[in-house]
């Protein structure tokens, strides 16, 4: 999976949650799940090079199975 921003389809926006109080939330960019996968998982973020921690993912409105998968999702990459 690689980072890409499509003009046709919106991707999944990802933020890194603060690990300590007072630390700001960091916007990491917009990504697409691997082919055949309908949402971004912790292992996908790890493959993108992100380290352990908690991330918040915003799914686009036109996501597949919108009724099944919520708009917002917390994803954790374990230590």
């Amino acid at each position, binding site marked *: 999976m690689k980072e890409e921003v499509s003009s046709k389809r919106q991707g999944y926006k990802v933020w890194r949650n603060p690990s300590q109080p007072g630390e700001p939330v960091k916007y990491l960019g917009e990504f697409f799940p691997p082919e055949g996968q309908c949402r971004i998982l912790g292992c996908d973020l790890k493959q993108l090079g992100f380290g352990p921690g908690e991330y*918040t993912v915003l799914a686009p409105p036109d996501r597949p199975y919108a009724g099944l998968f919520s708009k917002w999702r917390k994803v954790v990459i374990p230590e």
Partner: protein
Amino acid sequence: MIDVTKAVAEAGAWGIGLRDWMELRTHVYGNVDGFGDCDLEDASDEEWRGRVAQVLIENGLAPKANRYIECCRYGVRLQCKGPVTHELFSPLYCDLRYCPRCGPRQFARLIEKHSPAVNAVCKQKKPGYLLREITFTSLNTGELSSLQVKRFNQNVKAAVKKAFAKSDAWGALWCDEVGFNNTNLHAHVLVYGPYIEQAVLAETWRTISGDSVVYIRKAHVNGPKALIHLLKYVSKMPADVPEIIGQLEVAFHKCRRVHALGVFYNFSGDDTDNIESEWTTCPHCGADLERLPGTFRLEKLIMEGRTFVGLRHPERKQSWVN
């Protein structure tokens, strides 16, 4: 309270709307997932609140939108000053009129606020005086604005005052309502006063407002129940479409929904609950409470084993209750 300018700039930089920026905050600034899985448990509630918030944002009420989204997601830690130092928490509510959580709370507070006045007049037994129910209606124009609501309230006030101008010791309480999923603005009034002809009242209403439909009847239940009947729609959602809820919140922005006149005005009675909250003291031992710094996600406070207490503010802000 959010810094709207900063929020708009940050949301723009991230390519999201202000509603998503607000929702993001509620997800990020919680560091405990109390229920073990990372998916949001109440996605439908969040979706509902987000759609209401979007209408508020579009009408320049971003801080209210943020409160609506954050309602009951965070709480504050409270600790009692007794020897055992009991640990408690209280949620942060949005206190908006058309919030499914705060509407019923406002209803309870309004009952507490106005019950002493209604009970007092019921005990008086002034000859010829009864509790009566009046309904004033207005023309449904298909839309509702703050200006319309304000003008309607001025008209109701003028009509009631004119109708009972020759009487003494009368009182009136009224509550603005709209029809379900529409903009049919009307007022239910609970009046304590002498008999008045429906035709006279209708003519008064027509002269003042230009609208003609008025109903009046003797209250069909006794004092406290008549008050509950009057205020019951405060606790009910007037629409099942979030966008309509948002529009109503905009229309009633800075407009009171419940009003008191005559002997019902500013009646505090002997009930101290009208002055201060019962939660200024610990429910376990009665010691004073102190608020600890910070706000936390509710599930974290629940997981800490704290006791829930219902109110954030040490003093009940009566001016909010309308």
